[in-house]
């Protein structure tokens, strides 16, 4: 069974094409189900965000998998394949797992370390799992990826620090006021950035957002958008007195808030800090305002500077995060390799059990005289002997260090025990080895896909 990945991301495709290949706006579960139904893929997960559409499948045949997914994409989105083929990227096996781990860690994101992606990966897996479109391979790979995402977040500072002006402003407000519940916000000037910051503040639970603008209609529109109330422009200065956070973003050519305006409402009149965010260019607030003891004044350059610092800090963490991903890919490879021994192990067990059964069959006449519980014990004892004999070789086979050694050992085991010989039941009476039988390769994938019980212990 092979892991295979095909998709587009912000690295390979322009936004209009990503929009055309987007799954997130439609029923994701139905899409996954449609894919599994029509293709040879045993398992499938579709990860779709605004920056990527990626299809992960587990398939016995990697060659046909690509073709099937391309056909599915073309049919499902009703797009000619030539439109998206040049923008597709594809990975298989370890490269696909590595890609998923990097995505979950936030390393492949447009804004490196952004926090939403891990949740989106989880949702994508959940949607597929609900439709029973996942199996042992994808389940293991995705859960491993969740672990990688968690590790990167807890062991590196990759996701730390605000990387947009409005988030930087909210983060600062939280460092000044702690929780923002119950705080009052005054927005002066109703621009796009005021709307964005006001919305972030609203989501932090501020008690009230008061909006004022020279153009009353703009203020009304913003108030409706973010859920606030408006005050007339003439009352702007008195409104500062009631606010904890003042956000200014007017198009004024000269400062509209002077040191005296702020001085008039601070000092003895209020002990609480006042946080003024001036995102206007040119500035709305006289820089001298920051000389007032309890006033914290940040302009757009200050916030921009914080964003740059945070981006630089995230950049410095990338190497650490990549190291974690590399380490996890190695561990995952070891697990994957141990899985490859499974078909041989299954065949070996089958062969031993067949011999056991054949022997019991041969002794049937003599055992017939025994009471039922004694017969059951004979059965039990022989079964245990077989299991104990096979325990160590099984573990050793799974733990072999590299692929070549494993292939050699598997081949040896196949040859020694004549595995893959259809007439294994007859092996109870030893005869000359059949060349035909040993030359025939074992059908690994077929037995692995049957979901044998031996599959389970590996999902520790």
């Amino acid at each position, binding site marked *: 069974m092979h892991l295979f990945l095909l998709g587009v991301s912000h690295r390979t495709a322009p936004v209009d094409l990503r929009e055309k290949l987007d799954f997130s706006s439609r029923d994701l579960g139905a899409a996954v189900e449609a894919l599994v139904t029509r293709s040879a893929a045993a398992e499938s997960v579709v990860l779709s965000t605004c920056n990527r559409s990626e299809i992960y499948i587990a398939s016995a045949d990697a060659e046909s998998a690509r073709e099937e997914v391309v056909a599915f994409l073309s049919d499902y989105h009703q797009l000619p394949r030539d439109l998206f083929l040049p923008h597709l990227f594809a990975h298989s096996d370890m490269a696909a797992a590595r890609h998923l781990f990097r995505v979950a860690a936030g390393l492949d994101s447009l804004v490196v370390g952004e926090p939403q992606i891990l949740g989106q990966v989880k949702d994508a897996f959940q949607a597929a799992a609900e439709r029973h479109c996942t199996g042992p391979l994808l389940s293991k790979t995705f859960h491993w990826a969740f672990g990688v995402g968690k590790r990167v977040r807890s062991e590196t500072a990759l996701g730390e620090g605000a990387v947009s002006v409005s988030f930087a402003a909210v983060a600062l407000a939280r460092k000044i006021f702690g929780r923002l519940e119950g705080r009052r916000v005054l927005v002066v000037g109703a621009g796009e950035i005021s709307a964005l910051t006001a919305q972030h503040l609203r989501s932090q639970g501020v008690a009230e957002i008061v909006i004022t603008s020279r153009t009353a209609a703009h203020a009304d529109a913003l108030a409706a958008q973010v859920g606030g109330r408006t005050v007339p422009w003439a009352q702007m200065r008195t409104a500062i007195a009631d606010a904890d956070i003042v956000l200014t973003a007017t198009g004024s050519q000269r400062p509209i808030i002077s040191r005296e305006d702020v001085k008039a409402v601070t000092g003895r009149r*209020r002990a609480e800090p006042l946080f003024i965010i001036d995102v206007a260019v040119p500035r709305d607030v006289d820089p001298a305002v920051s000389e007032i003891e309890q006033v914290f004044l940040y302009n757009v350059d200050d916030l921009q500077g914080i964003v740059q610092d945070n981006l630089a800090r995230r950049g410095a963490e990338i190497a650490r995060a990549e190291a974690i991903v590399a380490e996890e890919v190695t561990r995952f490879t070891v697990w994957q390799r141990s899985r490859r021994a499974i078909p041989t192990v299954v065949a070996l067990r089958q062969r031993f059990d067949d011999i056991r059964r054949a022997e019991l069959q041969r002794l049937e006449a003599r055992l017939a005289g025994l009471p039922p519980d004694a017969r059951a014990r004979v059965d039990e004892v022989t079964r245990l002997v077989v299991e104990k004999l096979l325990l160590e070789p099984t573990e050793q086979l799974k733990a072999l260090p590299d692929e070549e050694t494993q292939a050699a050992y598997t081949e040896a085991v196949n040859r020694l025990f004549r595995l893959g010989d259809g007439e294994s039941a007859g092996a109870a009476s030893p005869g000359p080895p059949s060349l035909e039988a040993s030359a025939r390769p074992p059908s690994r994938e077929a037995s692995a896909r049957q979901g044998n019980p031996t599959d389970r212990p590996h999902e520790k």
Partner: protein
Amino acid sequence: MNVLPLILYAAAGVAYAIHFARRQPQAGRVATTVLILAVLAHTFVIGMQTMEVGHVPFANPSRAVSTFVWLLALSYLYLEITTDERAMGVFIIPILIGLQTIPAISPGVEARDPILDSPWFWVHVSSLLFAYASLALAAVLGLTYIVQFKEIKKKHLGFFYTRLPSLQTLDVMNARAITVGWLFLTIGVVVGAVWTAQARAISPDDPNLQAMALNDPKILFAVFAWAVYSFAVVARRTMGWSGRRTARLSVFGFVIVLLNFLPISYFFTTSHTF
């Protein structure tokens, strides 16, 4: 016997420093656990001394320091557990370690002056020690407030900005610690004065009691510290004094308390020498 708590405080200090620098949650949990162990060991030491002399040991300056360290550690643990905020540990533990070395080096002998055989004594000393512990917390909160304030005001969001709690949290905790400290300081000073007057009536010739006056440095500094904290409490309520100003006051006030507690107790006072 005071060495074991000292070693454990030092171990907790290392863990808190690692937690502060690397911000690893596990290091924080280890730090808290080691500190709890240190406090338990210290409780055992103080318990043994209490059984030995019949009351909590604080009539000798070294033993009073040990009891103070124990109360400060307990108060800090209370603050940490109720606020889930570990960043202060790295500032508090060095105080614990520094002060605990005094009883660890010279344990001191508990005084058995008959004058001290009074419930007033117990209330007087325990109120003041608890007040000092609370004011020590306030001072550390004030100091970190000043550091955090400076980073935000000057727009240098550096090492401390990410690690310290918000200004609001620090300010509220500082105000609470000052209020509690001031309250117990008041109780301690008032009880001390009442008790002195009572004791004088019983044994008018005791030199210790005769020295109990405002011109004694220990008493003078205590009253001065009380005045500073009273101003901090009143100014917050009536003059809008909060934030950096009260933070500075709490640091200043604690410098006086610490001066009074250590050098003055050991070298200058003429009263309080039992």
